[in-house]
């Protein structure tokens, strides 16, 4: 697909005097899984809602699926799916009734229904609960229903705002599987605060105070991170962490009982051997074994959030 699915240049959204989005530039041309990360108040929800035409925005250029976001977005709505952070389907309608409501709004045929619904129900494990009111489902089930509901009309763009927040571990995994499979036919854009989900996106968009701070594959972002994690094992992880903070090139620490994970600014630190030696030599906190860890999402996001919120 050569025409961009999403094309944003200088996208701005104001609420009164405040700029929730202060000039977003983003171009997405193919079906993939894009993660949007960043602290609360960064503008993630605002950006996601703008993409599906829910908000009035100004921009140099703002096109989604070829439609201008600043103009008439009615036709756009038929081709997007949206899952909000809080459950916004009808709690008093059953699972099947909710799906039927969506099918009718999108004017799906009976053939469409037969082809898609049983599969969606099977993959979400909702098949045995077809007649249960949505409000009576557990949190994880509800979110799975919301995702299935959004996928039913096979949208060209699917936008999800922290769909797995607060959902139990098993359901989170199932939702992720659904989304990963959806990316064959849909551009999936989702906001998440879970590190493991961010790591599994095709590309990540890091937002802070309404601007794009970084955009690229997790791998690329990790390479540019500037922070390298080390781990120092001992008997008192917390004491090790405290001692490690005294080292000039240590930016952050996280301690468990057993170890301290130490984030080292690669620009200022000696070579890996030197860091390990320093760690083993920490005073007041015996380190039995120290190792260098591969750069991961935790270090990457830490680096980004420190840099942005300096």
């Amino acid at each position, binding site marked *: 697909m050569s025409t961009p699915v999403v094309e944003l240049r200088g996208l701005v959204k104001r609420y009164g005097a405040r700029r929730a989005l202060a000039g977003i530039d983003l171009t997405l041309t193919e079906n993939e899984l894009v993660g949007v990360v960043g602290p609360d108040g960064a503008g993630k929800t605002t950006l996601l*809602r703008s993409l*599906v*035409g*829910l*908000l*009035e925005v100004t921009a140099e250029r703002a096109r989604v699926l070829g439609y201008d976001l600043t103009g008439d977005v*009615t036709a756009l*709505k*038929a081709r*997007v*799916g*949206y899952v*909000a952070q*809080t*459950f*916004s*389907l*009808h709690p008093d309608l059953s699972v099947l009734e909710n799906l039927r409501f*969506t099918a009718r*709004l*999108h*004017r799906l045929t009976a053939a469409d229904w037969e082809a898609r619904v049983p599969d969606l129900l099977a993959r979400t494990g909702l098949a045995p609960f077809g007649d249960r009111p949505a409000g009576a489902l557990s949190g994880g089930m509800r979110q799975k229903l919301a995702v299935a509901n959004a996928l039913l009309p096979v949208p060209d763009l699917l936008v999800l705002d922290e769909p797995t927040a607060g959902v139990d571990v098993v359901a989170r995994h199932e939702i992720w599987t659904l989304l990963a499979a959806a990316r064959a036919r849909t551009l999936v854009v989702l906001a998440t605060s879970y590190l493991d989900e961010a790591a599994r996106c095709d590309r990540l968009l890091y937002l802070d105070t309404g601007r794009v701070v970084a955009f690229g594959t997790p791998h690329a972002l990790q390479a540019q991170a500037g922070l390298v994690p080390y781990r120092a094992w001992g008997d008192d992880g917390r004491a090790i962490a405290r001692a490690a903070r005294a080292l000039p090139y240590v930016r952050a620490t996280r301690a468990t009982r057993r170890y301290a994970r130490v984030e080292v600014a690669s620009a200022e630190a000696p070579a890996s051997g030197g860091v390990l030696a320093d760690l083993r030599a920490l005073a007041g906190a015996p380190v039995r074994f120290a190792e260098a860890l591969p750069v991961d999402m935790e270090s990457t996001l830490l680096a980004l959030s420190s840099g942005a919120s300096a």
Partner: protein
Amino acid sequence: MSWRRLRTLVQREVRATFRDPFTVAVLITVPLAALLTFGFVLSTEVNELPLAVLDADDTPASRRLLADIDASDAFRVEPVRNRAELERGLVRGRTTAAVVIPPGFGRRAERSDGVRPPEVQLSYDGAEAVLAGNAEGALRALVGASGAALVGAGSAGGIALTTRALFNPTLDGRPFMVAGVFGFVLSFLTTLITAVTIVNERLTGTFDQLQVTPATAIEIVLGKLLPLGAVFSLDLLLMMVLAGIVLGVWPQGNVVVFLLVSMGYVFMSLALGLVISASSVTAAEAVQKTVMFSIPLVQLSGFAFPIRSMPTILQWLTEVFPATHYIRITRAIYIRAAALDTLLPELLWLAVFAALLAWLAVRTVEARA
């Protein structure tokens, strides 16, 4: 009980409350405004009341009497040429009272023997019972004063005043009130419920979810209004039947017209609720706004207090409320059995309001945050 804690709590409440301009406005200006408004409105005095007058006698005496009446503050004389015109005026509701000076008034005034005193006939719209009663009292006083001068000192009697209530002959206040209640309930409750329901939907996110589907704004508006409208229309029917069975008040005029107009009014009020919901962030705010809107509505729509007794400025203001016109129509049908053609001005007003509110409602739903 800790005084320190109490003081802390009070301090916070004061700070938080007075930082919110909306709350300050409501707390201070609304009571003051209410006092002033009600002070002017709460009056059943007779003041520049349009009085239709038919001078069938046309003698110096009758003309003198009319001049006296006209000179007073209580009435504004509107001469009519014949009885038909007089009754039409009353049925239309343009005049609340009418005076007929029958032929022979002048002659009797001269001769004045106390046995056959000069007569003046007063007809009034019994629907507005309170006002009518006060009008009668005012007229009696005037006629009495005038009569004393006209008839001559020392003679017994004076001018005899016969009165007749054209509608609602028993001067029962109930039809008046019942007809008004339709207006009140269908204005206040409908608007309130719609406003609250929709605000809650915005809060839970279901409204947003609808916005992301192919459903158009018109479809969404109708989808909301039709079911609620149906329920309230049923309410309407029940209220009408109950008023008839229990209170003995049935519409004297065309029931079908009444129901149709009322249903239209219901939809208008629902649309208004939708518009109010757009400007409210919480359900509580929606309730506050609806109530603030409805209290003046009750006072100024003629539901409880006669519009004709209000200062002229307020009388003009009341014309802006759809409720005023609806209540006029309801009363006209219920009490005066008014026909469709007499109601046209009111209906036209309502149609204009309805179109305006419908347009606003659709715009509200279409509007993006």
